[in-house]
């Protein structure tokens, strides 16, 4: 890649950094949300600590996300407008993968806002909105792998793995200690394993393969021109 001008811009670094950090924070928040469901041994950690940590980390994730979006919009390289933050498909730069990011952000913003007014809305409604977190996370993951240009760097893969591990372990512990039938438990774990496998396969022949930038929809003038 040929470097242009004075090297990579600060905004670009921030976008990548905060995006990756948000992925980890989101994974941790999700994991704590699962732990919140009650299987936590009370002697180790009071339940309210798990609960408040969950809410704190979720807020941190959203803050990182805000910086991630803002810096991406302010960075003139990829020409991403502010509308792209919430509307999928409005960018010329990798429209699908960036669009997924917008969807993930929309969902997370909805979850966060509904939690702010949790006591004002009926509990079942709040619960259903909150469960959208399970949709937001995989969408965010696909966005991270599909639109990020750091995918092949080990540090990013490590971060993504950490995030997945947190979620995976929390789910495993919850499933193992739940009172579901053995069949259902096996089925759930199996389902997760299959999903993970499919994701890994896609990652290997997609974002981690050579010409992903072009396949993902990076505009031609940006390919080969490298990063500033």
């Amino acid at each position, binding site marked *: 890649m040929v470097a242009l001008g004075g090297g990579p811009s600060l905004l670009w670094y921030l976008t990548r950094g905060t995006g990756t950090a948000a992925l980890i924070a989101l994974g941790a928040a999700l994991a704590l949300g699962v732990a919140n469901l009650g299987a936590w041994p009370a002697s180790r950690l009071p*339940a309210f600590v798990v609960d408040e940590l969950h809410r704190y980390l979720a807020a941190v994730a959203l803050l990182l996300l805000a910086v991630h979006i803002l810096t991406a919009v302010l960075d003139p390289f990829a020409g991403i407008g502010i509308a792209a933050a919430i509307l999928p498909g409005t960018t010329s730069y990798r429209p699908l993968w960036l669009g997924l990011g917008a969807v993930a952000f929309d969902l997370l913003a909805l979850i966060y806002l509904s939690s702010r007014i949790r006591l004002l809305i009926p*509990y079942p409604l709040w619960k259903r909105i909150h469960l959208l977190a399970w949709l937001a996370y995989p969408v965010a993951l696909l966005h991270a792998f599909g639109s990020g240009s750091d995918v092949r760097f080990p540090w990013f893969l490590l971060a993504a793995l950490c995030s997945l591990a947190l979620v995976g372990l929390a789910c495993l512990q919850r499933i193992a200690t739940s009172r579901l039938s053995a069949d259902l438990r096996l089925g759930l774990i199996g389902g997760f394993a299959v999903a993970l496998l499919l994701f890994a396969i896609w990652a290997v022949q997609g974002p981690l393969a050579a010409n992903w930038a072009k396949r993902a929809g990076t505009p031609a003038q940006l390919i080969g021109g490298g990063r500033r």
Partner: protein
Amino acid sequence: MKRLVVDPTACAGRGLCAELLPELIELDRWGFPLLREPNVPRELEALADRAVAACPKAALRLQASAQPKLPRRPPVS
């Protein structure tokens, strides 16, 4: 003075409220909250707010005491 109220139909006995406000809430033998004193003294109001926010089922509420007490439900007719 504000008053603590537990919605017993929503409460699942998770006990976060008693962890945060042991001065006013203790748990019975089944893990469900016993409000020793429903009225919240001024110095505990912040903790009470935190306990209300922490309840995973939104079962704990803080009411202004001026609200009329709901008429006691009569038993089956």
